[in-house]
């Protein structure tokens, strides 16, 4: 039997940390990919199913079981044609976090972005997915995209 609730500013455990309930505040990584060459706006795949947002309907992606925050995103890709482009995280029908990617024709490009917990939140039952945009016809073309969205569960 425990000794009640305790609040600390910081906890350092020099050995193992065993939690017999559920750890709130743990991170998870949502994985997406798109292999084919794309020069437009593409919602990446969850496994073999493409995520989607058909003008607010047919919203597909990972369905959340718990509330939380989006705290990082990253992408690895090949850029074959120059042009500005962006990486956009969506929650339901809202593009919540859009970031410009480097315009650099190269293979194996990796880019990472972080933000504070609480900046973009979600609830249980929300759907999270990610898109790559060629920024309104910039001509940018990429392929072999593998992206990750990191979330913290409340």
């Amino acid at each position, binding site marked *: *039997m*425990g*000794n*009640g*609730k*305790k*609040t*600390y*500013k*910081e*906890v*350092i*455990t*020099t*050995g*193992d*940390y*065993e*939690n*017999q*309930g*559920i*750890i709130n*505040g*743990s991170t*998870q*990584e*949502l*994985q997406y990919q798109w292999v084919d060459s794309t020069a437009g706006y593409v919602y990446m795949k*969850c*496994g*073999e*199913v*493409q*995520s*989607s947002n058909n003008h607010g*309907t*047919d*919203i*597909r*992606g*990972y*369905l*959340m*079981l*718990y509330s939380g925050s989006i705290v990082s995103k990253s992408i690895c890709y090949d850029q074959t044609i120059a042009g500005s482009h962006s990486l956009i995280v969506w929650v339901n029908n809202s593009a919540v976090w859009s970031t410009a990617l480097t315009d650099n024709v190269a293979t194996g490009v990796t880019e990472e972005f972080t933000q504070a917990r609480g900046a973009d939140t979600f609830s*249980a*039952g929300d*759907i999270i997915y990610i898109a790559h945009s060629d920024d309104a016809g910039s001509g940018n073309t990429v392929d072999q995209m593998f992206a990750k969205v990191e979330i913290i*569960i409340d």
Partner: protein
Amino acid sequence: MVGGKETISELVCEGDQDTQGERKGTIAFLYYSHLGPVTSNTFLKSCEVINNTWAPGKTGSVIGIAVVYDLQAVGTPGTAPTFTVRVSGSSVLSVSTDTTIANAKKARTTQARGTDTFTSSQDIECVLLNSLGHTYAKMIAIVAVLLDG
């Protein structure tokens, strides 16, 4: 300060938490998908592999399942099919679908830690149990597990 072992019922850490050993009791997501369309019992895929499983590697509990799917056509009337988590072939946690034809439908459920447990060597599958001939497609699933160690 380095203390010894302390057992408390609830711990709130307002800042960072640094575990220099192993953290026991963490949540992990297992990912499954299937493009379909399918009209019978179907194992969802782990990555590109069909009829395969995630092996957890540690003991733990199944604590949730969440699925986004299309129901394209309804077959024989009857009990609605389910998306079911199976541990080494035994069904442990299911979420029911309904028979309203629509795209991007959602189904999810959670349960307490300890309700359905697994050992490190068991397999965790996500299966559409559909014996009525309904047509499902574009299925994206997460199975949440809580690892004991």
